[in-house]
């Protein structure tokens, strides 16, 4: 499992410690109130292994899902990991000249050891559990992003994790460090074609937004309709007076257990967390997000919207946590899930831990269905039921999609939502008409 090159000693040590945790910890089961349990009982972990691949010189040499989602002309840099290997890497030379780094974490450990050592794992400890330890102990390839102080990057810096073979275990590790007063847009995609069999993506993502910096972050997950299991933790830390807008988009995956945390770590930091999920078939999605305010004078705004078709299950649990002494924090969290079939099940659980006074924090969560008054209104204008439902679901997601602030990515997400609605058209229309 160990990479063959001789690694910097700090990383070697980190891996050793993490491996102990990994071997000690059992495969977890995540229990929730009510009907909810996320279990990996059906995942045959010991049949999965890292798959290595060679470098490619063009995205056309990779499975089509990559080129369908990423246009090289529209990004400032791109790194693609296929299975266990970094297989494609590009960075606009003008960005490189300004000191921007986008490379595999493997190379970054060699070439930017000090930076990596300073930030790696700072917010994501291997001690957190089996899979956090797995990513720390077993990661290969990986991605490292660095935007130096004061540098402004116009086009997005893009990381892609691709799984295209059943039997793949992918241990993914992304570290992104954005310097003071820098500005950039970051994206991490998890993509797979419809593979026939099981695979695992165990991911760890860390982003550090430096003081006064401004980062637009998007995650897009579309693991296709094979049995890809995604167990990931993503964490964003925002420093003084910095701003981060994070838009995670979940468009599919057999089983997903993700922890998404955003930390306002210093005064004046501001976060916008706007997520979207759409599950179908027998997909299982378990999301836990935390909006943590460690210091005062910080602001937060979390909105998550979901929709479900088929027999799918989705649970969203969102926590606002305001630490002791973090006065004058203003934050709120809203989540809504829309059931589009009789058999789908959703949970929306907002919660609040406030350890200080003089804050304003509110939260709300609902699970609902398509509004029949809206459907009738649209039908009264001649629009057939199925189209009315499709338009209403798209309209429901539209405010989240627009938060992406990038036309081609917005188009991609709209198209995939539309495609899901077309696939489920009959059941959704029948479910809507039934009431």
């Amino acid at each position, binding site marked *: 499992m160990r990479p063959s090159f001789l690694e910097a000693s700090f990383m070697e040590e980190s891996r050793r410690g993490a491996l102990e945790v990994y071997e000690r910890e059992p495969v977890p089961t995540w229990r929730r109130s009510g009907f909810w349990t996320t279990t990996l009982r059906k995942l045959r972990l010991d049949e999965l292994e890292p798959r290595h691949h060679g470098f490619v010189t063009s995205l056309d040499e990779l499975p089509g899902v990559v080129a369908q989602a990423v246009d090289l002309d529209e990004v400032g840099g791109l790194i693609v990991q296929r299975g266990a290997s970094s297989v494609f890497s590009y960075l606009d030379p003008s960005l490189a000249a300004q000191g921007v780094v986008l490379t595999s974490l493997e190379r970054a450990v060699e070439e930017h050891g000090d930076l990596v050592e300073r930030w790696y794992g700072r917010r994501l400890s291997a001690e957190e559990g089996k899979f956090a330890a797995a990513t720390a102990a077993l990661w290969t390839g990986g991605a490292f992003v660095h935007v130096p102080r004061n540098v402004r990057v116009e086009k997005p810096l893009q990381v892609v994790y691709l799984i295209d073979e059943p039997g793949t275990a992918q241990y993914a590790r992304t570290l992104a460090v954005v310097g003071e007063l820098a500005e950039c847009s970051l994206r991490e995609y998890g993509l797979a074609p419809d593979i026939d069999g099981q695979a695992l993506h165990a991911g760890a993502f860390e982003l550090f937004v430096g003081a006064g910096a401004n980062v637009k972050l998007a995650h897009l997950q579309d693991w296709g309709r094979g049995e890809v299991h995604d167990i990931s933790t993503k964490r964003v830390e925002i420093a003084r007076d910095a701003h981060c807008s994070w838009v995670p988009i979940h468009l599919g995956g057999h089983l997903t257990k993700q922890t998404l945390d955003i930390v306002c770590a210093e005064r004046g930091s501001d976060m916008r967390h706007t997520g979207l999920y759409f599950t179908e078939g027998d997909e299982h999605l378990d999301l836990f997000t935390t909006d943590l305010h460690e210091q005062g004078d910080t602001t937060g705004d979390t909105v998550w919207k979901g929709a479900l078709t088929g027999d799918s299950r989705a649970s969203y649990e969102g926590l606002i946590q305001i630490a002791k002494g973090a006065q004058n924090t203003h934050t709120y969290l809203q989540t809504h899930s829309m059931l589009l079939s009789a058999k789908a099940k959703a949970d929306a659980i907002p919660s609040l831990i406030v350890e200080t006074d003089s804050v304003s924090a509110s939260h709300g969560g609902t699970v609902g269905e398509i509004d029949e008054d809206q459907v009738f209104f*649209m*039908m*009264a204008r001649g629009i057939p*039921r199925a189209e009315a439902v499709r*338009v209403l679901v798209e*309209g429901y997601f539209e405010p989240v999609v627009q938060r992406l602030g990038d036309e081609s990515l917005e188009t991609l997400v709209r198209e995939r939502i539309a495609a899901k609605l077309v696939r489920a058209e009959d059941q959704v229309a029948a479910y809507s008409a039934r009431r």
Partner: protein
Amino acid sequence: MGLEIRNLHVRTEDREILRGVNLKVEKGEVHALMGPNGSGKSTLANTIMGNPTYEVTEGQVLLNGEDLTEAEPDERARAGLFLAFQYPATIPGVSVANFLRMAVNAGRDEAIKIKDFGQLMRRNMELLRIDPEFSKRYLNEGFSGGEKKRAEILQLAMLKPQIAVLDETDSGLDIDALRIVSEGVNALQGPDMGTLIITHYTRILGYIRPEFVHIMLEGRIVREGGAELADELEDKGYDFVREQVEASGAA
């Protein structure tokens, strides 16, 4: 040719609301259906459009002789019926322009050219004195009462139905807005469209003069006449009609 309601009986879960309504609205005619709150006016409007909340237990809704009683709302709309809602739904994420285009295209075999659509929309917005920026807003989201009603009449203008039912379009409008909306309806009214104005008050009838007035009480049309009936109602009120009807033993 036009709308015909035959002996319509309608109930919701708990009670019978319409108890045998007969009404004919020919193309080219303007009718007013008046009645106090709870008399069944809005139920009739919704039933004409096929709102699934209301159950037709007896009778028929016909357009140009074709029985639409069992038709879905979208089929009725495409056949030429239009309902301007008393409380139109909000459609988040869908701009006025996109919604109008969808609705216009729903009634056509071939999609309207973007350019033609743009012209048509601009012309109708001018007619209703609507700010062009309005078309970019999500339909009815954050609209004032007056804006919602204007948006309804804009849809009417775009869809050019054979029969338009205006359900309490005057409610919640100030005098200026009422005048603009009424002028819009008058401009659209012609030999190809019949209009049924449903209202509690006579105020709108000062702007849109009906040729026929029907008064509804407790789920039935109890009196019918020309425009002078509305004037009589204005003077004497619904209680007078009620007493009259009770005296004649018709209710």
